[in-house]
């Protein structure tokens, strides 16, 4: 197993390329909110004969369009994502059009979660959620499971008390 310190580097790094596969899988879910909002009223209206039944096909077409767009944007999304973990902070850059950079000083971190859904687990990926006081500060998707674990250990080492650690006899 690699040493936890190996996650630290001053350069911006991209995510694990396998995340593209994960995003491709997730893109099938992308039109779900749209479909819920479109199909229910459409279904009601067509069943009452208010509008022709082929109008449901339009909704399905739009849903397919959403899927295709999401798939086409995966490479751009992958390119726009990068992260940097140094001794002092964690940073994540993301966004194709709406760009953002998030910085969390390491000593502000309260706790760190590792999440992996069934699909992510099957391709060996996990994501890290970093919490500060007051809520989630950032999410880093697309990490190899081992790397996620190493990052977590590295981040949590920084939260150790700064004073001398309590000895067994003191309390």
């Amino acid at each position, binding site marked *: 197993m690699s040493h936890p310190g190996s996650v630290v580097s001053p350069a911006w790094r991209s995510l694990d390329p396998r995340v593209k596969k994960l995003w491709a899988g997730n893109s099938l879910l992308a039109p779900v909110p749209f479909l819920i909002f479109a199909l229910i009223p459409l279904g009601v209206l067509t069943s009452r004969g208010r509008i022709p039944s082929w109008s449901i096909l339009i909704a399905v077409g739009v849903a397919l369009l959403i899927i295709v767009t999401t798939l086409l944007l995966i490479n751009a999304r992958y390119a726009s994502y990068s992260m940097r973990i140094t001794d*002092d*902070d964690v940073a994540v850059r993301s*966004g194709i*059009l*709406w*760009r*953002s*950079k*998030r*910085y*969390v*000083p390491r*000593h*502000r971190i309260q706790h760190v979660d590792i999440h992996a859904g069934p699909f992510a687990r099957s391709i060996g990926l996990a994501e890290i959620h970093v919490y*500060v*006081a*007051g*809520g989630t*500060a*950032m999410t880093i998707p697309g990490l190899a499971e081992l790397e996620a674990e190493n990052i977590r250990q590295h981040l949590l080492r920084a*939260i150790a*008390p*700064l*004073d001398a650690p309590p000895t067994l006899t003191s309390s």
Partner: protein
Amino acid sequence: MIEPGYNRVHPNTILLSAVAVIRQMIWVLLVAVIQMVQNRGRGDFTELLFAGMGGIAVVIAVIQYFSYGYVVRNRTLEIRSGILSRNLRTIPIDRVQNVNISRPFLHRLLGLVEVQVETASGAGVEAKISALKEEDAERLKEELTGVAARSEVFARERPDVAYQASFKELMIAGATENRVFTIVGGIFALTQFGGLDDEIIVDFVKKAMDSPELTHLPWHVWALLGLGLLMLGWIVSIVMTLVQYWDFEVIREKGKLKRSFGMFNQIENVLPPGRVQIMRQSQSFVQRWLGYGKLYVETAGSFELKEHAGRSVFTPIALRSEAPRLTHLVMPSLEVNDLPWQPIPQRAVVSRMLFSLLFFPALILTAWFLRGAIPFPNWLTPLGLIGTLAGLFSLIAMETYLAVRKARVAWTGHHLASRVGVFTVVEEYLPLQKVQSVLWSQTPRQRRFRLATLNFVTAAPSPSGKFLTMADLDQAEAERIMEEVHAAVREHADWSSQGF
């Protein structure tokens, strides 16, 4: 039954919680009573049902009373409750953010108070100890915060009153805020949820709208009606401010600040200054003209019980010249009058107007081309429409221009500050120590104009107080501020061990 060693709340809690249950059921009860009146003599079970429900409420209240106990020991507040499922909640005293002593009206009639303990978890009040005798509550508060009671008779140092709202100041505070919308909202809510009268109101409005006398009322009657509503809103807001902030006082004691206020429902709240995340000063147009402002503080405690849109009011109103002294109480190293304010780039005007710049000419042109094609109603001529659109556009343009011209940001090395607003000017101050994370963001529009927005995230849970935002900074300037803030936060790893 609770274990020995635990303190019990006042027996009148039973009465108070029974009343609370009845108050929660008030609409259901109302419906039941009406049904009962309608079904009189025909015999039904509603009465029995409600007698049963009331009985159960009282039984639950009694059980709660006997199973509830609290104690402070080993610098920890312990609260036990429950008979069937038992709970033990422990709160380390060092983690306590605020302690409020509140005296709701009913409690006051019985001579009792309620103690609320807040921690930084953000999920509301962590512990609510309802109905204690004043002495017990003050003793508990002293154990939790080290701040002595107001009513303690002996061995008390003279309280150091830092701020006291006079009657005149409260009048000004109320008079410079209008609550027309509260009234309109209240009337709307009444028609929606006010039981059975809504049909009468709807019928009345319908009839009024249909009647020719009303629709053909001359305009000055409508104007007078509007004026009357405004006056009503004005009076209501004065009365509400007086009732809510009556006797407002900030007292400094042992390095902590104690706020107390309220005419019917009295609230006493201890605020450790080091726990304040963001301080905010707001001045409406009229307030600025009169030289007054309102100060808010934002802590990491819960925001549900705070007084004004999730914020804690620090001073309902105070002279602008007092602001440096008052902010010093909370943030001793902050000099509000000497902040190195810098403007944001002028090109932000164009950036913010981009949508309107494209939208309005397109709309005006469409209206012009369609002027012959579609029938306009007689009260709206094509020229009138274009004029209205042009007027609206120039208003938006002026507002945007002023907003950009007046916006300021400041970064001193220890504090971050921002100022926004045209008519109501809001200044926010954030100590570097409270910055949890930094978010830099850029929309496509901002990228075109080389602008960026910075958000400094704090531990305050309320949506209004979570961030200090610096919108539309120059891209390079945003990078620079972010790097500097970040470097400064990095140097102070010791802050994390001092709580929030």
